[in-house]
């Protein structure tokens, strides 16, 4: 009886007795009084009059309920339900903490990844009317070019002739390396070479001073004279002094006048630009053939007001067609096109982000299944309490709503904790993301992210709260109240929990399979032979520009001295210079012609690299035929070239290339320089470990130098230990020459896989968390099953069943769940992992090893999870077990 009284008190406490409620009370009391008085007037005694009044009214409480319904009881009940939920959660702190933590993990991971998706994919570019901006590109089916860099002369023609373009600007992609001198120690700057109308086309203004003006694209002497600073550089170098406008600074040896400071939010084309410098073409260059032959500029157009994409494209195609005929030598196969700027810039980052988003989505689903199970198990434990409440007149809908409210409260708390985790996560992601993987380096948890989080929190609550709510609303009190009752309801609930467990195992399997594929792919990548030996080599990059290195001989003299000094350092085994370090991108490409082939026959896209004689020995690139370069291969000596074996295989089938001559002109003339092939070497992977070696020609550095060069030094021991000595040698040779990059080639190799490693690590982390949650789910459900069957076990043991067979009962149930989950997950993964294809290197999306290893591993873990409850069940003492219920 005390229980019932207590329950009643609790139920009363549930009702919100606010002002509205008191008013309603009074109003109804007034009504009954009036009715009673009327009845008394009609001749009834006081007692009958009141009874009659009450009867006529037809039940005060239902009226109140109906009244509350109209009043917006929902909100009011929500308040009381919320308080009730908070109280019940406080009474079960372990359950509440587990559920909240689980949800927080899921929501936090989603917050973090979505904030990146938001910043990279969803947010508009920080330019004026960014949807009117398009990225122009050139294509050339003959060379296999698509969305390629543009030749400046072509872009100038498009700008003049395509009327649907309001204006067009060009810039040099990425960041160049420039040197600031005369302001303390020489400083390497990330510089962007842009046209004068660059800022106008993007529609951005300076925060101080002015941006560049269109005629600053051109320069009489071919040198820039003005510079625009980034906010960051302005602050770090000049302490945000507004007086620097108009001041002159020396960059790459040229005095440049500071004309403006950009706002902190602006850094384009890449993050972390320090200075924007005009490209400063000589006006005469417009007609130079090189201006139409060399493709190295990015071009952005702003569509004219009212001009449609279609019009612009039609006009561009017409102009490109005319240029083909007008300049067949350079433009015969050259097509043009454009893509909305935002889509172009998002480009490759979309897929990894979507994969991560899908992964955290799966994680959240698993978390929801787990919390749903927790709640169901708990609901089951409170079955009799709920049954009592039903008997006392609580509506089924009301109980269901209360259960749902509890889920929402949990979800809200988990969401809150999740957002906090998520904000920390974004900071972590900013730190961990490999540079250049995502277009932006800063992710905000802004309103868009919060709205998304709110949506997933509500969706989660509905997901994991529906089953307990249905369960709460469907119970039959009579069944539940029976001592030890086993109702149909409880079987239905067990189905639910089993379904949830199967579901979360399936999701975890999918997640783990995806992660497994990336791990396998990454392993493949690390085992790729790059064509050189990266171990024990230090790479130091310098840019030899400015007045001091104007002539080829000055550059060569410097490199000779540098090599000589460095090779004298202790522990140095060899040193060599190169224009391009492998895995860091290629040099320029050209067409080429082999002497003696039919007239007019040429080949395209040969990559050029200048190296000093010891390059191949330092990098341990194997010689296949002929010889390496020697110091005799100097300027003035006969031009020589070494080709990689890819050229030999492709263009010298069955011939010995050594001794043959090639030229890098498409149509040789009497001015063409023919180089003799003196050697064939193994191919090096120039762009990435995942990309096969391109056809490549090595030229002696002495015959064709390059302003940007890296000194590669092979040492005995740790190459990084040599770094200070290299710095000292460079500073001794030229105090104003900063080293722009100094790292081991091993490091370069590791960094070239940064994106893949990052993606793989993230997926492995998400999969581990998902897997742990799923295993906890399996364990939880089986433990509960085992508990519920304790009496049965006890009877079996009492009747003489061996412990092993009792154990097997539980384990079998667990294994069935795990097996069904595994099968579902594998089928699901077979469909979904296809989306990973573009991210996998030499691994099929349905890779057999992964698809066998992961389920086996998960099956074993599942077995372990089933074993523990089974062990407990089999130890059931019959005497205790029989008394337990």
């Amino acid at each position: 009886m005390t229980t019932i009284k207590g329950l009643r008190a609790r139920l009363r406490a549930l009702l919100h007795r606010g002002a509205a409620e008191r008013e309603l009370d009074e109003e109804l009391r007034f009504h009954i009084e009036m009715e009673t008085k009327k009845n008394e007037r009609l001749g009834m005694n006081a007692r009958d009059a009141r009874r009659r009044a009450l009867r006529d009214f037809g039940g005060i409480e239902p009226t109140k309920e109906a009244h509350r319904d109209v009043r917006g009881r929902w909100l009011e009940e929500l308040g009381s339900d919320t308080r009730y939920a908070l109280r019940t959660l406080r009474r079960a702190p372990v359950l509440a903490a587990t559920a909240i933590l689980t949800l927080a993990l899921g929501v936090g991971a989603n917050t973090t990844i979505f904030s990146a998706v938001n910043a990279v994919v969803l947010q508009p570019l920080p330019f004026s009317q960014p949807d009117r901006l398009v990225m122009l590109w050139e294509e050339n089916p003959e060379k296999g070019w698509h969305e390629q860099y543009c030749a400046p002369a072509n872009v100038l023609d498009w700008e003049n002739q395509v009327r649907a373009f309001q204006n067009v600007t060009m810039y040099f992609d990425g960041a160049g390396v420039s040197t600031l001198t005369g302001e303390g120690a020489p400083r390497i700057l990330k510089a962007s070479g842009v046209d004068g109308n660059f800022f106008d086309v993007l529609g951005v203004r300076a925060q101080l001073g002015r941006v560049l003006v269109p005629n600053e694209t051109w320069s009489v002497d071919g040198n820039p004279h003005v510079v625009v600073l980034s906010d960051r550089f302005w602050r770090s170098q000049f302490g945000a002094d507004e007086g620097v406008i108009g001041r002159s600074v020396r960059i790459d040896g040229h005095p440049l006048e500071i004309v403006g400071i950009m706002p902190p939010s602006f850094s384009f084309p890449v993050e972390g630009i320090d200075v924007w410098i005009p490209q400063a073409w000589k006006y005469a260059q417009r007609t130079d053939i090189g201006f139409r032959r060399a493709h190295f500029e990015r071009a952005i157009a702003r569509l004219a007001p009212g001009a449609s994409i279609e019009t612009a494209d039609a006009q561009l195609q017409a102009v490109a067609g005319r240029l083909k005929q007008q300049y067949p030598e350079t433009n015969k196969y050259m097509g043009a096109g454009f893509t909305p700027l935002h889509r172009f810039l998002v480009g490759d980052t979309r897929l990894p982000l979507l994969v991560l988003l899908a992964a955290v989505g799966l994680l959240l689903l698993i978390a929801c299944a787990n919390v749903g199970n927790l709640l169901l198990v708990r609901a089951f434990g409170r079955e009799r309490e709920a049954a009592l409440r039903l008997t006392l007149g609580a509506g089924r809908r009301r109980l269901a709503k209360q259960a749902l409210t509890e889920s929402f409260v949990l979800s809200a708390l988990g969401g809150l904790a999740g957002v906090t985790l998520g904000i920390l996560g974004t900071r972590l992601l900013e730190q961990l993301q490999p540079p250049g993987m995502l277009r932006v380096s800063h992710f905000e948890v802004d309103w868009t992210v919060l709205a998304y989080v709110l949506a997933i929190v509500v969706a989660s609550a509905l997901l994991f709260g529906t089953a307990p709510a249905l369960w709460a609303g469907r119970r039959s009190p009579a069944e539940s109240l029976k001592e030890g009752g086993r109702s149909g309801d409880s079987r239905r609930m067990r189905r639910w929990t089993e379904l949830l467990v199967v579901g979360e195992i399936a999701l975890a399997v999918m997640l783990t399979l995806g992660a497994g594929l990336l791990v396998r792919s990454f392993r493949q990548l690390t085992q790729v032979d790059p064509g050189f030996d990266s171990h024990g080599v230090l790479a130091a990059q310098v840019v030899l520009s400015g007045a001091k290195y104007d002539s080829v001989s000055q550059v060569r003299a410097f490199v000779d001295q540098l090599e000589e000094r460095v090779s004298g350092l202790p522990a140095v085994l060899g040193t060599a210079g190169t224009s391009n370090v492998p895995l860091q991108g290629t040099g320029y490409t050209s067409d080429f012609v082999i002497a003696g082939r039919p007239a007019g026959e040429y080949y395209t896209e040969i990559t050029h690299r200048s190296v000093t004689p010891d390059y191949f020995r330092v990098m341990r690139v194997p010689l296949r035929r002929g010889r390496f370069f020697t110091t005799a291969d100097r300027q003035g000596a006969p031009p020589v070239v070494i080709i990689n074996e890819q050229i030999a295989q492709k263009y010298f089938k069955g011939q010995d290339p050594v001794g043959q001559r090639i030229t890098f002109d498409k149509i040789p003339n009497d001015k063409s320089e023919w180089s003799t092939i003196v050697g064939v070497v193994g191919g090096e992977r120039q762009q990435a470990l995942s990309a096969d070696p391109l056809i490549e020609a090595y030229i002696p550095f002495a015959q064709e130098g390059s302003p940007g060069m890296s000194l590669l030094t092979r040492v005995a021991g740790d190459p990084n230990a040599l770094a200070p000595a290299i710095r000292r040698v460079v500073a001794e040779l030229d105090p104003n020459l900063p080293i722009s990059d100094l790292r081991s080639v091993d490091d370069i190799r590791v960094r070239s896989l940064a994106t893949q490693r990052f993606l793989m690590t993230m997926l492995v982390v998400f999969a581990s968390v998902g897997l742990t949650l799923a295993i906890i789910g399996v364990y939880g459900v089986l433990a509960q099953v085992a508990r519920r069957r304790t009496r049965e076990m006890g009877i079996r043991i009492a009747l003489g069943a061996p412990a092993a067979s009792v154990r097997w009962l539980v384990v079998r149930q667990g294994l069935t769940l795990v097996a069904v989950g595994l099968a579902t997950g594998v089928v699901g993964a077979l469909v979904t992992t296809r989306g990973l294809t573009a991210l996998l290197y030499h691994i099929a999306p349905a890779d057999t090893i992964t698809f066998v290893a992961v389920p086996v591993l998960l099956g074993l873990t599942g077995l372990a999870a089933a074993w523990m409850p089974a062990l407990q069940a089999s130890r059931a003492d019959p005497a205790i077990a029989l008394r337990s219920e």
Partner: protein
Amino acid sequence: MPLAPSATPDVLRGTLDLLVLKTLTLEPMHGWGISQRIQQFSRGLLDVNQGSLYPALQRLEQRGWIESEWQTTENNRRAKYYCLTSAGRRAVGDEAASWRRYVDAVELILQIS
């Protein structure tokens, strides 16, 4: 004492709002008064189900057609009085018109055969 079943029909669903509004066109009135008035005016033919009266008042108030205020009755009892708002006055006309259309329509159908 056994209670006789009521012989008066309940107010048709959906028409209660109209009856309440119409009643209130006369003067502000409390809930009990409204139920008495409806009974009176219909010469005892209609009996308002009290259980639906108060939710209906609540609904009308939410719709902005009536307002409520606590006042003292002639017998010095506090009661909640309801009165029509101007929107409520307009609504009476509309509701009455649509009720008449409805009655006419039903009448037309009943005339078949």
